């Protein structure tokens, strides 16, 4: 972003240089999750104890600066609750989030917003229909009291350029833009504070495929240009494979497998990861629809199965899987983790 430096944003901002893999071990990761859990209470009342629902349980992840971590899993697996905790929109029940090595707990929301910004799924509901694009994109600057009105307008115009929107869009309302253009507005709003970390929660799911490609290209360009770190949440495995450096697979609130793109897509070790990959229908005629061999006994998140939460659907489940919960471990010492007794 060729932003003239009249506006200074406080805080360390190593923007354009993505560190090499070796340096990541010494510098703290851009984002670190340590034993993060979120429990909601369902039902309950004056005299009745509610049931506990563990939306996210004991999630630990490190995302090095400049990398893309993919987070995949089916609806209700806790992906979005995790994203909300990272954005400070929900307080974790347990565990910590470290941004640049500093704990998020107790940090003020404004300071956090300078580092971490979201892009949500639905550009139709995430933009205020009564505000002009310039107001929507410029609002973070206003909230943080950055620059004069004129400086802010200049910054908005530059950011619109960066995300590939015409300048005239500044005076339009979200209703006048297409889905792809709206998602560009959402990206511009996320970038205007020049964050280090962007949490992308299904950013292309609501878009048509021809537009999806435009937005994915833009996200890749922006990452290269500003050295951004992404947590990329998606259910579309082809998109995840295209975009990410590492992948974490979630099932019922827990990470069941985590590794590099090559490790997860090339040689998945958890049966759930394998089923997910088998279910992805690539545009290859003649292959038919695969039989993924999964039961459809969808578990109740407020009453998760004992042992491995996946065992009721797992085609390979053994007696041990019903009794003991497998730990997420780096069994082979290859920096990939899997939680399966049979891995």
């Amino acid at each position, binding site marked *: 972003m060729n932003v003239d430096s009249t506006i200074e944003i406080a805080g360390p901002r190593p923007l354009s240089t993505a560190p090499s893999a070796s340096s990541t071990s010494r510098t703290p990761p851009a984002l670190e999750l340590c034993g993060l859990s979120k429990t909601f209470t369902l039902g309950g009342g004056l005299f009745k104890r509610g049931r506990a629902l563990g939306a996210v349980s004991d999630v630990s992840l490190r995302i090095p600066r400049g990398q893309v971590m993919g987070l995949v899993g089916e609806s209700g697996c806790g992906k979005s609750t995790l994203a909300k905790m990272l954005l400070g929109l929900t307080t974790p029940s347990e565990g910590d989030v470290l941004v640049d090595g500093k704990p998020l707990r107790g940090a003020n929301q404004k300071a956090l917003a300078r580092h971490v910004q979201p892009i949500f799924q639905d550009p139709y509901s995430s933009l205020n229909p009564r505000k002009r694009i310039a107001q929507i994109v410029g609002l973070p600057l206003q909230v943080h009291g950055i620059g004069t009105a004129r400086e802010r307008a200049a910054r908005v115009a530059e950011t619109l350029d960066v995300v590939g929107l015409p300048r005239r869009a500044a005076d339009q309302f979200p209703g006048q833009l297409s889905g792809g253009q709206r998602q560009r507005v959402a990206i511009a709003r996320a970038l205007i504070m020049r964050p280090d970390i962007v949490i992308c929660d299904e950013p292309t799911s609501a878009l048509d*495929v021809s537009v999806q490609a435009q937005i994915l290209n833009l996200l890749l360009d922006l990452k290269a240009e500003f050295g951004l770190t992404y947590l990329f949440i998606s259910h579309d495995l082809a998109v995840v494979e295209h975009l990410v450096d590492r992948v974490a697979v979630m099932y019922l609130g827990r990470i069941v497998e985590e590794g590099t793109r090559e490790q997860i897509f090339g040689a998945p070790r958890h049966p759930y990861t394998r089923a997910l990959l088998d279910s992805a229908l690539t545009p290859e005629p003649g292959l038919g629809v695969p039989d993924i061999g999964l039961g459809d006994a969808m578990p109740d998140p407020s009453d998760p199965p004992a042992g491995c939460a996946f065992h009721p659907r797992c085609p390979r489940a053994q007696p041990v899987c019903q009794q003991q919960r497998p730990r997420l471990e780096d069994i082979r010492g290859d920096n990939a983790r899997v939680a399966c007794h049979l891995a």
Partner: protein
Amino acid sequence: MPLLDVNNLRVDLPVEAGMLHAVRGIDFHVERGEMLCLVGESGCGKSMTSLALMGLLPRKARLSADRLEFDGTDLATLSERRRSDLRGARMAMIFQEPMTALNPAYTLGNQLCEGLIRHRGVSRREARERAIYLLGRVGISAAKERLDQYPHQLSGGLRQRVMIAMALMCEPDLIIADEPTTALDVTIQAQILRLLRELQQEFGTAVIFITHDLGVVARIADRVAVMYAGEVIESAPTPALYAAPGHPYTRGLLSCIPTPGRTLPGSRLQAIPGVVPSLVGDVKGCAFRNRCPQAQPTCERTPPLMSLPGDHRARCHFADRPVPAPRQPETMS
């Protein structure tokens, strides 16, 4: 004679800004027992087409067609009464969101049996027996107990299985399935698609499957019709469409999805620039020309439907010319 024969179907909707031409003169046919996929992006007219076939268009919509024949019956001039005799009995529909398509106030048994009792005049007991049989066939365990449950007691995947069973109750000749798996998780989607394809082949039911997902199309369709801006711009048997797409839009759609093994991770995807044109007012010439990498001045004239080898048609002036090399291909060796 095909089961369904559609010629020059048009659907117009009056909107504030003028007349919206949602479907602009499309031709297609469906043979008995085949799976035809209608594929296209939002606003291309695929859902309006399905509603027109079912006779469920919004009241203000205007329909016209040179031919709209279902098994020899002209649908365009059919009375509403005769129409509702067909609906559910010989043509059934599966919608995208089973929660809104099922009535929350009635039990599954009630809803499953209603059509069969109405159309075939069978007893409630016989209808329940068929419902139990079909629930079993769509993979629902304890089918008998399920009949007394309400839709909210089922997961999304189970609800869609119930919708499939319901569509099959009267053994229809044609099922129209409008994005039936789009709202489901991927593992459930694979299971439902497999089931639908198996049952379709077993019962010999013709299916019009409407989707935006070219991955799904590749795996289930016998033939494909690609829609863009209210027109069918290409139709072909599935293998031919993927092997040698004849329309630049189809080529664009296929190249903009990342495909493992073919696209290099992290490389630039070939996006289709621009946006779909407005269909309010008259559309002249090729509707895709403003986004087309091969557009020529000729494209301002309406393109003919060109025939390609093997029951393959494309609405493009240049469909029979060699395909130009893609721009900056970044593919795996």
